């Protein structure tokens, strides 16, 4: 089964994370600039304030979910308040448009 790691991270960590993930066999990712807040975000007049983050989306086989999470966690400042979050989402299927390959084949 495939899983999507949807990570909300501090932008400065992006390049080192890409390098580490690629070295560990992950061959694709999408990055989006986002604004957001979480439980620990700064507040103004009692309201949370938007902060700049990046959303990194990586689809991986379930067998490497844990190692990918470890890489991201180690580089994204584990233990630091506001470092971000990773959501692990089940992916029912994946299709590579150029070849019609589906499933794991479509991402490796």
């Amino acid at each position, binding site marked *: 089964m495939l899983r999507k790691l949807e990570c909300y991270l501090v932008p400065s960590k992006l390049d080192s994370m890409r390098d580490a993930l690629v070295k560990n066999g992950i061959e694709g990712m999408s990055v989006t600039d986002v604004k957001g807040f979480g439980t620990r975000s700064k507040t103004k007049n009692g309201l949370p304030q938007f902060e700049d983050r990046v959303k990194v989306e990586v689809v991986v086989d379930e067998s490497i979910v844990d190692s990918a999470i470890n890489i991201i966690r180690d580089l994204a400042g584990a233990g630091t308040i506001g470092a971000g979050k990773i959501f692990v989402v089940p992916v029912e*299927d994946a299709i590579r448009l150029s070849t*019609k390959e589906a499933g794991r*084949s479509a991402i490796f």
Partner: protein
Amino acid sequence: MPTKVAETKKAKSAATSTSEVSAGEGRNPWEMALEQLDTVAKLLELDSGIHKILATPRKCLTVSVPVKMDDGKIDVFVGHRVQHSTARGPAKGGIRYHPGVTLDEVKALSMWMTWKCAVVGLPFGGGKGGITCEPKNMSEGELERLTRRFISEILPIIGPEKDIPAPDVNTTPQMMAWIMDTYSVNKGYPVPGVVTGKPVAVGGSQGRNSATARGVMYTILYALKHMNKSIAGQKVAIQGYGNCGYFAAKLLSELDCKIIAASTSKGGMYTSKGFDPEALNDHYQRTKGVVNFKGADNISNEELLELDCDILIPAALENQITEKNADRIKAHIIAEGANGPTTPEADRILFGRGKFVIPDILANAGGVTVSYFEWVQALQEYFWSEREVNLKLRDIMEKAFESVYAINTERKVDMRTAAYMLAVNRVAEAHRLRGLYP
């Protein structure tokens, strides 16, 4: 008279062997199955005690099956049910009706089911059943009485948690419904999990019809992946246009393969432009064959095997690729939709020529895998959509293919030997862990 038929059949059904096992015309299939096991045991350095256990079926039941025929007379048939192994789970395997059925054939086939279930990682052992009869000469009523009486005779050893039959040569979804009914009436409540391959209306699974072909398609995709080749544009020849052949043509055509040839026992057709599998199926339904298809040339079965194509799918009979034609096979990938289409000598020749053979116990395991899903759905009393079935099937086929491929690469053996090594090792591991009672 039946002896002669039986011996021909023996030789044919025994062809599912590892490439390192020598063949012999007319040899006893059970002896050949044992020889295959010996070969793999040596490669695996298998414990001799476990080897002895695996070389013996756990249970063989032979029954006589008296049936009142349509003319009012009674005929008595002989049937067998063999459970080769229940180490990894309940026994699983089909029931065949054929004049050539013998106990030794059923024993060999049951051992082979053990390996097939193990190679794809299903929680089943191996079983097989058969009745020596000629179903083509029997009426539907006679077949129903034969089926029901046979099941009542083997009733004590079958059941969802013991041994789960399925269709095989000359047995149909309708017969599986009779098996389900006979067992259920005897138990006093419905037991859909006693048999698989049932019609959907009595607990059959979505996706069962195309399951074998779908499994074949997946294994072809994974083989191409390792060769860094794309599926699109691959030229495919298919021997046999039954359930497996037709669906394989349909599924591969949807992936932009060019299906250039197909055949049945009555002969074959070829067109370099490729054909529409649906149109050929209509033609097949109308004419009961594939010859004289518009825009195509008629060819023989032998010519089909030697066509200039990329992928060859033998989906018909045993012993089709032999030492006589293996030198002339042009396809790069041979995906065995049928059981035992390649003889051991041919296997050696193909391996030597760098051809990639996807062995039957891997390539056509999609059928038993969806049978497993049917059993799981019956036990859960909860039914899955066809999409769910297909995705789960793909997951299992991919894992099995990759596991076999890893052994093929590491041990530098052909895919068939690799598949047998994986399977025997898994069953042996189950024996080691369970230990020996008492």
